[in-house]
């Protein structure tokens, strides 16, 4: 299962990176967000994966408990990622409205 998750993280980063290299504004933003998901999953993996273990409740300690802290970390990271998502999507929309173009190069070329 660990291998599968590692591959998934790699795919998320790879696809995200590929999309982020695109000049299309929305693809660019999606690329960034996919990379964010990759990083979140990476943190989740850091606690190690466990199968069939129950959370911390009374009487569950015979077989050990799953790592809870990395789950708490990823929860925080997801919430932060949510704020970032909201900001980037709105920023992309505003850029599209102001520049009337979805080409990232138009933003780069703009020099006041």
């Amino acid at each position, binding site marked *: 299962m660990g291998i599968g998750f590692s591959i998934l993280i790699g795919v998320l980063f790879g696809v995200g990176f590929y999309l982020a290299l695109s000049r299309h504004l929305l693809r660019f933003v999606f690329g960034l967000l996919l*990379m964010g998901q990759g990083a979140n999953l990476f*943190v989740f993996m850091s606690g190690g994966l466990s199968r069939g273990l129950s959370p911390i409740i009374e009487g569950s300690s015979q077989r050990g408990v799953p790592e809870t802290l*990395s789950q708490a970390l990823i929860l*925080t990271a997801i919430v932060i990622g949510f704020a970032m998502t909201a900001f980037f999507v709105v*920023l992309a929309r505003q850029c599209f409205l102001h520049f009337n173009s979805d080409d990232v190069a138009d*933003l780069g070329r*703009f020099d*006041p």
Partner: protein
Amino acid sequence: MTSLPVFVLLTPLVFAAVLFCGHSWGRERVLAINALGASAVFGLALFQWIQVWTGRTIVSTLASWPLPYGIALVADLFSASMVLVSTLVGFCVALSLRHNQEFDPGRFGYAIAFQTLLTGVCGVFLSGDLFNMYVWFEVMVVSSFVLFVYEAGKAQLAGAMKYAVPNYLASLLFLSAAGLLYGTLGTLNLADLANRIHEALSGTPNHQVAIRSAFVFLIFAFCLKAGAFPLSFWLPASYPVVSVPTLALFAGLLTKVGLYALVRTSTLLFPDVWPFSRTLLLIVAGLSMVTGILGAISQFEIRRILSYHIISQIGYMILGFALGTKAALMAAVFYVIHHILVKTNLFLIGGLICQVGGTFDLKKTGGLARHYPFLAAIFFIPAFSLAGFPLLSGFFAKFSLLKAGFDEGAYVLMGIALGVSFLTLISMLKIWIEAFWKPVPLKSNAPPFRALSWGQLLPLLIMAGSTLALGLWPQLLFGPAERIADEIRGRNVYVEAVLGEAR
């Protein structure tokens, strides 16, 4: 006393919550509450600093979870000093908002983001936990995004994209590094990490690879946020479009927060991971100084000149921290504190130059010394302090840094530092001559003369006064700087302060 850092963080958050209720409040009221919040957090920071200076490191454990399992807020002298000077700068910028004419900071939203930005900045300084530090970084970064695009036009939106994307990627790397370290060492508390990294480095190769990767991730992320050379591309592309009070706040605080995190993590966690990293940082420092200053002298727009200067000044600070001797660390600490005051002040003055001269472009302005001699005098202090004039704070910062460097035998870097210092003087003289001495150009679109009010000058005076005081009595800062240098070098002090108190 041990919960003092918590109150430092809570105060701006509470003010942000209060401002959140003020949908329909008028401009004056919102800005007054904003300034009140900034002054309250400054007062607390001052109290905290005095406590740390006269006593010892304050460690507060949140919700009384025993360390290293709980989250710690740690105020040692380094972080307390950074919090103190940052909140002072925040207070000055909050005062200057009232007279801002570029945009209306009294509308809903601006003051909230202002307060949360202060929270984030103080949070990074006070955090004693790597993941917690990441969260405060994000609080700061998201608030800065909001301030960046406040009443944005085309230029701000394009700039925001260039600013937000690299910062977001750096945050991802920071998060991944925290994950790697947690996965390898099973802790996120900085002091506990410092203990365990040493053992793990002599452990299995897997662990070594993970720790080194985390180190590289962290250096990359923090160098980007600090605006050190190869990763500084976003800074001159985005900063010059921000409106002035916001820009002054960014320039004073954001890059220095990245620098603080770089110094804190690399000295505390990775002092012996790689001798290579010190050399790397020295090269980064040299290149930052040179590229920054070359950018600055080629520009004729005040905000652009000053933005490029940030890069070159960051180079000086990294140089001091990377040299790593006690004298060099003292110089670097002195440099950071002096720089925060001077840089914020220069940007605020730049805003006034634009207001009275009608433009940021030096070619289209001039003759300001005749009508605004007082503004010229206030500009003189931070500008020539930045260049390193004797009897101003920058002189002692540069002098002590150069002395430390020559003692270490880093002649090439010191030669670069001297040359860059000379070019800094040239570019400051350029602003001085073009804006203040040169006769008014024919095609000037300066508004009719209006005397500057004391309210506009007060924040500038506070910061210029601090610069002057540090120049006349440098021992005021060298005393604390010496203790900070000792704290950074003797990392056991930090570890014992945090973990010793828990037992």
